[in-house]
């Protein structure tokens, strides 16, 4: 780890005024310190935000919840209001990392996790995300865990978070504070596709701090399911994951949300497919058609073609479980 300056502000205003291009905010630190140990990230200044008053989960006027950026992943997954109203989010968080890491990791930090692409993590090889313009060894190299949707010539990395897949399905809103004021960002717009600038994972500016994540009232508590497929039964990143959430209108689907993890540079959502599901009676055939449509533009690489069929089957299973009540794991 490189030497760095350390400060611990006690207000959000002070924190964002300390921030600059060579600084990083630190909360749980579970990903940042790991990246620093690997020399992938070398900040000159760490701004410890754990003293900021961002640890509350509060109810909003329109029936949703406002989650402080410093609420730990464990506390959020096991929060009574999350378990009752947003079981999809609880399931997704508990599918990720280990109990120790979930105790440490924060809500805001989870959104800012960086890809676990092997080439990004190895500072001795080129990587357009780590060093823009240096190249992408993953395209022609070992790319079993890489993206099948939304990738670019510059980058085929995937976003590693489970929590973010559920937050995308729930249409969360990210609250951000910068030196020039506060703003909110729709979850679908928060993370970026790699395009020509894969070094930028999201829309945040250097001085901007995530202060909260807001959940709208609709929690899909009766018909949602998070399905994660990975190489071992626990404590591994997703090869493919699916957040499926339905509102039933009698025998037919009234509203649908369907988001994939492990397949793209950001949680992958296709609202056209969601709208197509509305009015349909849940069935294996319907869900298979939705899965085929969602994957029709998939562009697999040499080693990850299996993800296409895996994702299709995972979608059918997750939607089926959601339709039946979503309580099975």
């Amino acid at each position: 780890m490189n030497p760095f300056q350390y400060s611990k502000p006690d207000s959000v205003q002070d924190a964002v005024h300390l921030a600059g291009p060579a600084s990083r905010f630190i909360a749980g630190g579970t990903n940042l310190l790991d990246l620093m140990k690997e020399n992938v990230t070398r900040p000159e200044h760490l701004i410890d935000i754990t003293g900021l008053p961002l640890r509350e989960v509060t109810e909003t006027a329109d029936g949703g919840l406002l989650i402080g950026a410093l609420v730990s992943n464990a506390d959020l997954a096991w929060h009574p209001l999350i378990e009752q109203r947003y079981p999809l989010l609880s399931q997704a968080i508990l599918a990720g990392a280990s109990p120790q890491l979930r105790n440490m990791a924060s809500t805001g930090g989870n959104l800012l996790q960086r890809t676990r692409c092997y080439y990004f993590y190895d500072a001795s090889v080129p990587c357009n995300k780590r060093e823009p313009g240096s190249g992408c060894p993953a395209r022609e190299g070992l790319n079993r865990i890489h993206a099948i949707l939304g990738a670019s010539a510059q980058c085929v990395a995937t976003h590693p978070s489970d929590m973010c897949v559920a937050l995308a399905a729930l249409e969360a809103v990210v609250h951000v504070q910068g030196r020039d004021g506060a703003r909110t960002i729709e979850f679908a717009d928060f993370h970026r596709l790699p395009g020509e600038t894969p070094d930028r994972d999201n829309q945040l500016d250097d001085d901007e701090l995530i202060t909260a994540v807001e959940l709208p009232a609709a929690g899909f508590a009766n018909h949602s399911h998070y399905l994660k497929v990975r190489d071992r039964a626990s404590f591994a990143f997703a090869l493919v994951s699916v957040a499926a959430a339905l509102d039933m209108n009698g025998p037919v689907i009234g509203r649908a949300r369907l988001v994939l993890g492990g397949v793209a540079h950001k949680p992958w959502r296709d609202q056209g497919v969601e709208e197509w599901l509305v009015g349909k009676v849940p069935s294996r055939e319907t869900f298979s058609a939705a899965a085929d449509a969602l994957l029709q533009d998939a562009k697999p690489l040499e080693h990850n073609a299996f993800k296409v069929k895996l994702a299709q089957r995972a979608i059918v299973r997750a939607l089926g479980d959601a339709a039946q009540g979503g309580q099975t794991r």
Partner: protein
Amino acid sequence: MSATTPEAAQPTFARHPLRLTLNGQDRQLEVLPWTTLLDLLREQLDLIGAKKGCDHGQCGACTVLLNGKRVNACLTLAVMCDGSELTTIEGLASGDELHPMQHAFIKHDAFQCGYCTPGQICSAVGLVNEDRAHTTDEIRELMSGNLCRCGAYSNIRDAIEEALPACRQPGQGGGR
């Protein structure tokens, strides 16, 4: 020294004060910002129970209890623990009286080489404090952050399963 010497040109990095309640004792320390909690314990305080297995939060051998919650000491900056209560494997027993979880690990032979054991036991006590593991499968899932290369998993699971009721008694949680 004149201001033009190379030494003076280097940025200076302040040591930061660190107050800890470490295994029940108040400690006043000073640390550099990049010292991890694990390196502080092992290199400066001679508490070598917590192990440096992977140093990346993947193996759990460094697990300690920070304010009663299990965390990976290798991914924790010591400076960020100011004012905290920290329990390591060295602090679980009461004098010569082992913690019930330590008893259970011995009874069930829940180790071979023993390298992962301090982390396993601290993690298991953290699991007790969380009170979320009520079935064998839940114990297995909620111990997934601790690897054992000897493969003593079945005995580890048995030890935790047996120790859970005793550990739930008031005052036996440990590490609070």
